[in-house]
């Protein structure tokens, strides 16, 4: 679905708060059609980055592009985005419909039905005269999403959007994102602490730590990296590969540098592989089962220990 055109790009982006570097040379690219999952622990710089994209904060260095525009020209392009950064914020004395009507008028979105449609979409159509100040966190999140969607954005920026949603809400939210991405080709930048949830929607990941993007990787490449396999360290990788093909009849393996073979077969019965190698004169120096989910991959990348 993506076409390699960058909807948003950061080049050496920096943000300093006194001596503290919230962003320290961030480089990243969100391509059209992607659902880009931004992963990082608290204070990594995810929200700071999103606040810059949405114009709430100005960078102290580097460059930011939105739909190819940078600097002051970026402001106009923001009308093509929808954003929900941190806690959704609305006038507490207005109802959901009144709040959205206010922003509809302000943004010049034609037709009052736009408000009804988007309220229907996030399941808030029946809130009636209940004021925003009486909303639960989940309802606030839904209203925040409704505002972000009201102008049919090309690029949706969501910071921790599923905080406070119940399981049913999370599932609905996931469906909405998928539908927007597939039917309207909406590009989405999303951060979440719930990595398992992120992994169900993201097509591309950026791992962030201490104000920098450590790695950008497609969901497919990450899936391949995280696949469970047997890591075989042998004395002769070429010979081992031949043995695996002829004796075990499998080609589900990769030969890596350093006489390492990653075997994606025989996971239930690793002894078969070791016997076959030994019987054919290949010395098996080490064997371990490898595999990781998104969380383990991330923790491994940043050195482990703390949660995202």
């Amino acid at each position, binding site marked *: 679905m993506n076409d390699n055109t960058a909807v948003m790009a950061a080049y050496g982006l920096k943000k300093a708060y006194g001596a503290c570097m919230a962003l320290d040379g961030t480089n990243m690219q969100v391509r059209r059609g992607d659902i880009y999952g931004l992963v990082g622990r608290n204070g990594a710089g995810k929200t700071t980055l999103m606040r810059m994209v949405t114009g709430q904060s100005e960078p102290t260095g580097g460059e930011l592009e939105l739909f190819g525009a940078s600097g002051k020209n970026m402001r106009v392009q923001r009308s093509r985005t929808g954003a929900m950064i941190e806690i959704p914020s609305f*006038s507490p004395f207005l109802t959901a419909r009144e709040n959205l009507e206010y922003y509809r008028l302000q943004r010049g979105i034609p037709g009052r039905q736009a408000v009804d449609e988007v309220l229907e979409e996030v399941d808030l159509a029946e809130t009636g005269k209940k004021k925003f100040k009486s909303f639960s966190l989940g309802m606030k999140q839904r209203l925040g999403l409704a505002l972000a969607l009201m102008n049919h954005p090309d690029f949706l920026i969501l910071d921790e959007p599923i905080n406070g949603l119940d399981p049913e809400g999370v599932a609905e939210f996931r469906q909405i994102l998928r539908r927007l991405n597939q039917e309207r080709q909406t590009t989405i930048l999303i951060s979440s602490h719930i990595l398992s949830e992120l992994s169900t929607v993201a097509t591309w990941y950026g791992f962030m730590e201490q104000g920098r993007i450590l790695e950008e990787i497609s969901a497919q490449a990450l899936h391949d990296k995280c696949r469970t396999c047997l890591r075989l360290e042998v004395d002769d990788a070429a010979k081992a590969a031949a043995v695996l093909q002829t004796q075990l009849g499998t080609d589900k393996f990769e030969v890596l540098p350093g006489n390492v073979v990653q075997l994606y077969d025989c996971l239930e019965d690793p002894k078969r592989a070791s016997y076959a190698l030994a019987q054919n004169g290949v010395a098996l120096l080490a064997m371990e089962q490898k595999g990781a989910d998104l969380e383990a991959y991330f923790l491994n990348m940043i050195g482990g220990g703390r949660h995202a």
Partner: protein
Amino acid sequence: MLNYIRAECYKLLHRPYTYIALGVMLALEALYASMFAFHTAHSLVTPFGAAVVTITGMGVIGFCVCMLTGDIVFAAQYKNSTLKNEVSFGLSRARIYLGKFIAQTLLSLAYLVVMMAFFIGLCAAVLPMEAGDFFSAAEGLSVVGYFLAVGLPLWIGAQAVMCMCLFLVNGEMASSFFYAGVVFVLESVLEVAGLLLEGGAGQMLLKAVPYFPVRMLNEAKAVVGDWSYLGQVWLVGAFWVIVSTAVGLYGFYRKELK
């Protein structure tokens, strides 16, 4: 800009605070008018013309109304973090700032019209029109008209100061204190400083003092019908609007929204 102002008006019309504030002020006006009616009925006859002229002694209320309308329109946007919704859509900060200022001014003007119409109407209804030795109705209304013509640019200037305070200072209470400091207190501080300081600096401060809005409005009572003073007041009002808006916009452009 028109969309922005329409949206602000929509919000105002759906906010109970707008009606409650106006209701309280009208109730106070009713109380004030009923005081004249009470006197007229029992001892001292106060005709319509004399009653409406007393408004000229209450110009300071206009400056307080600016504080109120500023607060109503701004609607605690820093506290509620709602400005981010506007900026993130790509609305320019200038549009946001000026839109709010215009909405505040429109609300103040609406309050002014309703309050004046209510008070004059009420006085007309409960007080005698025969003037005796006092102001006639026509004289009274012409004095009020002049007072309003002088007050309008000064109130708009004060509105611009309030708007600046709301954008520069986080928190409505702090903004209101800052506004009160600039509009009500600063002139006295400058006057004292001007008297204490010797030389050019002191003279300069003393020269600035007569151009503060409250002082200029109070002066108007003594020069009713002076058209040159009216022209001067409009220039001073414009000066306050331009300077406050420039400072407020500069500060708002540099502000990080949280």
